[in-house]
């Protein structure tokens, strides 16, 4: 008897829905569901494969740090988070990621009330589900998260991030206002598991968590991230509930921070035109993370979005769009 070579797994990646329609107590026109894979990416002959989703990033302030060629496609919409978000949806984003960078003590130090105001405006201005990313400064995040979570109450946002050292505030407010959480662990599968255990210990269901094993641009340690994502996913598929979470990949911020995306052809002629090179760097980084098991991608350049969505559709053998509810 020849054994069946197909691999079947004992576990399954959790499905996480972001956004809430009026029927579910929110105001979104549609929701996005990620995860649900019962096998490795795109091996759909073995089992269900989840639909990866692509978010585009907006900020609560004008993105001074972005290179000209990244600002160019958005024009003066960058002055207003709502217009910027609408532009992203026109460009093909499945959902919006609002980064509250303007609240960072070094980048404007906006107040919790101002952060909450921006969140409300974006929610009123666009029909799509919302990912909300804090400043990355633990103290400031703990100040703004309560106001932000309350401002978005009922909208079932995905808010991040919690870490091993700072999780109690966000877990508490996401429990109170019913949001999903991003659990962050720097390139470390042991810690990824640990943060989930800590959140569950506070009564937060691990089924409402999306994990962020951090990210790295092509050429800057991407292979480590790839391995960590893959190792965690294999454990989750084998039945480890503490690693059965969908994975979010914060691509744009990494890819647009490296010199391959920022240096002009005039400076290094061998590298060719930056106009093509930079979005390609972002798309290539995203593609690697897609194959490692990424479920949710945050990108910046519309061409990278188009490229990644094309890759997803080709690999899945079908057109993939946001799961409209």
């Amino acid at each position, binding site marked *: 008897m020849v054994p069946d070579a197909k691999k079947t797994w004992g576990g399954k990646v959790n499905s996480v829905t972001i956004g809430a329609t009026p029927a579910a107590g929110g105001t979104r026109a549609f929701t996005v569901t990620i995860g649900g894979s019962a096998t490795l990416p795109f091996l759909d002959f073995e089992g269900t494969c989840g639909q990866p989703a692509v978010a585009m990033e907006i900020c609560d302030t004008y993105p001074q740090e972005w290179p000209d060629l990244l600002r160019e496609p958005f024009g003066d919409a960058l002055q207003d988070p709502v217009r910027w978000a609408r532009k992203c949806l026109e460009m093909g984003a499945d959902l919006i990621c609002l980064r509250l960078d303007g609240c960072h003590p070094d980048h404007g130090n906006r107040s919790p009330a101002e952060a909450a105001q921006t969140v409300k405006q974006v929610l009123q201005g666009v029909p799509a589900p919302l990912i909300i990313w804090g400043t990355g400064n633990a103290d400031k995040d703990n100040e703004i998260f309560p106001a932000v979570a309350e401002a978005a109450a009922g909208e079932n946002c995905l808010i991040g991030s919690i870490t091993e050292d700072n999780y109690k505030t966000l877990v508490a407010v996401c429990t109170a206002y019913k949001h999903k959480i991003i659990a962050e662990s720097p390139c470390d599968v042991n810690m990824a598991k640990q943060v989930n255990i800590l959140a569950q210990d506070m009564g937060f269901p691990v089924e409402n968590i999306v994990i962020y094993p951090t990210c790295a641009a092509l050429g800057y340690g991407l292979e480590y991230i790839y391995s960590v994502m893959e190792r965690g996913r294999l454990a989750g598929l084998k*039945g480890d509930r503490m690693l059965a979470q969908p994975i979010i990949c914060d691509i744009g911020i990494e890819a647009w921070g490296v010199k391959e995306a920022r240096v002009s052809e005039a400076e290094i002629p061998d590298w060719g035109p930056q106009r093509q090179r930079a979005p390609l760097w972002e798309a290539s980084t995203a593609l690697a993370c897609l194959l490692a098991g990424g479920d949710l991608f945050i990108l910046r350049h519309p061409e990278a979005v188009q490229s990644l969505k094309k890759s997803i559709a080709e690999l899945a053998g079908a057109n993939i769009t946001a799961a409209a509810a």
Partner: protein
Amino acid sequence: MGIILIGERINGSFKDVGRAIQEHDKTVIKDRVTKQEAGGADYLDVNMGAASRKLEDYAWLVQAVAEATALPLSLDCPRADMFRVGLKAYRETVGERSVILNSTTAEDSKLIPLLELAVEFKARIMGVVMDERGSPQDVDRRLELGGKIFAAATEAGLSPADIFLDPIVMPVKFMQDQPKHILNAIQQLTTLSDPPCHISIGLSNISSKAEERKLINRTFMVMALAMGLDAAILDVCDEEMRQSVATAELLLGMEIYSDGYLKAYRQRAGSGPVAAAA
């Protein structure tokens, strides 16, 4: 995928369970079920012991346990007619849920009818490596009988994942040279096929009549896990045992390390059938 833990506490040899079987009292049974679920059992063994020999009592017991849990059962009977009655009651109560027939020996008169039942009722089977000549005293005989059961079971159409082999644990107090044979046999039985079948033991035999029963049980458990054991019938409510199993899973690379791995293991326990589905 984790070690498959088969809870041993629903056994008519325990006085309260014996009385519950005779009086058809579900409350005692429910209590035993709940405690073993919380202890992280993947299967619940159901054995009447000497409390009754009546088929209808076994059918009642299987139904009472199956109704009280979402876990799969290990039907533990001495006779084929009792297995049939138990299987029938089980399938009528729960439908398709996984089940182990515990157990057959390598003796044809027992093995063949049990395999037929396993195929008919889509059950897994536990094969104990003994035959009409009795229990084996060395490694080779254990392998010979294990091989015979494995070959007959695959021939009957069972996959390795549905076969459990039990190399027979003997009390260290009376047969002190046996543990090392058992450990060697476990290691060699895992090489019977790729992927391997499951290797299971009735753990508490090792400490029969001894003073330090729990310490001997969990020490031997960890030694056996290191040799490739992946299932056991044991007391899942023994907290130190569970911590040792969790730590062994970690050290064997079956579980990803985290500082809170014991906490994660406890949270997993009682969360329902996980390993059983694998």
